[in-house]
C-alpha cells in the first residue's frame, strides 16, 4: 500500500490541475451554449448549411441545438480528448518515471516484487481516473442543472459522461504498455498527445469513410458520442473489444516489465 500512497501523493497536484482544467473547458463550452441559446434556430441553420463532411470533422454531424443534450456531445468531445491525454500521461509516466527520474535504483532494490510494484502503480492510476471522473460527474451535473431551462434525458447524460471513464481507462492501459515496451522514455507529453490525436484523426477520418474495420482501430469510435445519442446505449461489440484490449495491454505490461532491464544511470 505504501507505493500506492506515494504515487497518489506525488500525483496530487497534477490531478487537481487536470480536474480544474477539464471543468473549466466544460464550463466554457456550456456558457457558449447559454450565450447562443436565444438565437438557436439561426445557429442550427448555419450548422446545417455546412457540408456533412465538415460537420463530421467537428464531431457535430447530428448537432441538435434544440436541447442541451443535443449540444452536450459537442462539449464532451473536447473533454474526451483532454481526458485521453491526461490518462495516457498517467499511464506512460507511472512506470517510466522511475527510469526517467532515476529513482528506479531506490524502488527496485526494495524487497518488493516487480509484479507488486506494477500492480500498485496501476492501481494508483486507476484511483486517479476514478477521482477525476467522479469530480467531472459532479461538476458537469451541477453546470447542466444551472444552465438547462428544460428537463434533459438523464440516461443519455450518464451514457455520454461515462464515455470519459472508458476512454481514460483505454488510454491509461495503452500508456502502461508503451512504457513497458519502450526502453527509455525521455518525455511523456509528446507521446500522449501524438497517440491520442492519431487515434482521434483516425476516428474523424472514419466519420467520413464509415469503414467498419477502421472503426476497430480507434477507441474514439468505440464510444462515438453521436452513435450513443442515436442508440441510447454503448455498442456491445465495441465494449467487448475494449475489454479485451485493456486486459491485453495490462497483461503485456506485466509480462514485458517482469523481464525488463532497468537501464543504469
Amino acid at each position, binding site marked *: 500500500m*505504501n507505493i500506492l500512497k*506515494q504515487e497518489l501523493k*506525488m500525483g496530487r497536484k497534477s490531478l487537481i490541475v487536470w480536474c480544474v482544467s477539464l471543468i473549466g473547458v466544460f464550463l466554457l463550452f456550456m456558457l457558449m451554449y447559454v450565450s447562443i441559446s436565444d438565437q438557436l434556430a439561426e445557429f442550427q441553420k448555419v450548422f446545417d448549411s455546412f457540408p456533412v463532411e465538415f460537420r463530421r470533422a467537428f464531431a457535430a454531424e447530428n448537432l441538435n441545438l434544440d436541447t442541451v443534450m443535443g449540444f452536450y456531445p459537442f462539449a464532451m468531445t473536447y473533454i474526451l480528448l483532454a481526458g485521453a491525454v491526461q490518462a495516457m500521461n498517467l499511464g506512460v509516466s507511472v512506470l517510466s518515471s522511475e527510469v526517467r*527520474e*532515476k*529513482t*528506479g*535504483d*531506490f524502488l*527496485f*532494490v*526494495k*524487497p*518488493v*516484487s516487480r509484479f507488486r510494484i506494477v500492480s500498485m502503480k496501476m492501481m494508483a492510476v486507476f484511483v486517479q481516473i476514478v477521482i477525476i471522473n467522479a469530480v467531472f460527474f459532479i461538476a458537469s451535473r451541477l453546470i447542466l442543472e444551472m444552465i438547462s431551462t428544460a428537463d434533459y434525458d438523464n440516461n443519455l447524460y450518464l451514457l455520454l459522461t461515462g464515455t470519459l471513464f472508458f476512454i481514460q481507462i483505454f488510454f491509461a492501459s495503452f500508456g502502461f504498455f508503451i512504457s513497458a515496451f519502450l526502453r527509455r522514455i525521455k518525455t511523456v507529453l509528446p507521446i500522449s498527445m501524438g497517440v491520442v490525436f492519431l487515434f482521434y484523426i483516425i476516428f474523424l477520418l472514419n466519420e467520413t469513410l464509415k469503414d467498419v474495420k477502421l472503426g476497430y482501430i480507434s477507441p474514439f469510435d468505440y464510444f462515438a458520442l453521436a452513435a450513443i445519442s442515436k442508440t441510447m446505449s454503448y455498442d456491445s461489440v465495441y465494449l467487448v473489444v475494449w475489454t479485451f484490449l485493456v486486459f491485453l495491454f495490462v497483461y503485456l505490461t506485466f509480462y514485458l516489465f517482469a*523481464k525488463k*532491464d*532497468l537501464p*543504469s*544511470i
Partner: protein
Amino acid sequence: MNVIEINQLTKYYGKHRGIENVSFSVEKGEIFGFIGPNGAGKSTTIRALLSLIYPTSGTATIFGKDCIKYGKEIRKDIGYLPSEVFYYENMKVIEVLKYSASFYDDVDMSRIQTLSQTMDLDLNKRIDDLSYGNKKKVGIVQGLLHEPKLIILDEPTGGLDPLMQQKFFDLIRIENEKGATVLFSSHILTEVQKLCRRVAIIKDGSIVKVENLQDMRQHNYKKFTIEFENVVDPAAFGFEGITSLTQEETTLHFLYKGDINKVINRLQGKVLRNMLVEEPTLEEIFMHYYQKEN
C-alpha cells in the same frame, strides 16, 4: 559460508558486452573489494545481483538463494548505495527515509536520527535543495537504515568530502563488526585498501584476478627506481618478472616480482647515483594488471 556466490555470470546488452563469465564469492563477515576502471562491468555485476537487470547466462546466489528467483526475499537483507543517488525531488529527506523504511519489517526508526546525526544530514530539507554530497548522505542513511546483513556499495564516496568519507568508512566498519558483509566497488584503490582484505579485479567485463590485498602488496611486487650515472639500455632489464618498465633519461622505473638477487646481479658493474626499492601502491599494481592484458 559464502554470502555472495557468482558463477560464470554473463550479461550482454544486445550485442554490447556487459560482463563475461564473472565468478567470485564473498565470505560472510568480510569487506570485499571490487575494483576496476569505469566501464569494466562493476555496476553491471552489482545490478545483476540486485536483479535490476537479468543476466544472459550464469547464476548468482546471495545467502545461498538464487538472486533472480528469490530477489524479493533476498533484498530484505541488502542495503545498497548506488554511485549516483536520485530520489523523488519533491519530498523531504525525512519523508524519503520513512518511505524507504516502510518497505522493511521492524525498522528501528531511531536509527534515522542517529545515522543522520553522524553523517550531519538535515532531515527537513527538500531533496531538490540538496547538493550532490548531501544526496549521497541520504543514500547512506537510507542504505543502512534497516540494518542489512549485506551492504553493497557501488563507488560510494563520490561527492563526500574527506571528513565525511572517514565517517562513512567508520559507519561501514561498525556495521561490519556487527556482522554485516560488505561488497565495496570502486575505482579508487586507496579507499579499497583502507577497508578490504580481499579484492576482485575486473577489466573489460572479465575478472582478472581475485587476490588477497596483503599478498598482493607485500609478497609479490617491489617497485624499483634506479638512477644511473649514464644512460643504460633498458633491454638489460627485459627479463621475466619485470613489468611496467619505463625510462626517463638515466632513470629506470619498474615493478619486479621474483628473486631479488636477479636484479642485483644485473646491477653489477654499473655506476648508480641513487636507488629506491619500495612497496608499490595498489594503484601501480593495478595499472600493471591492465597493461599485462594488453
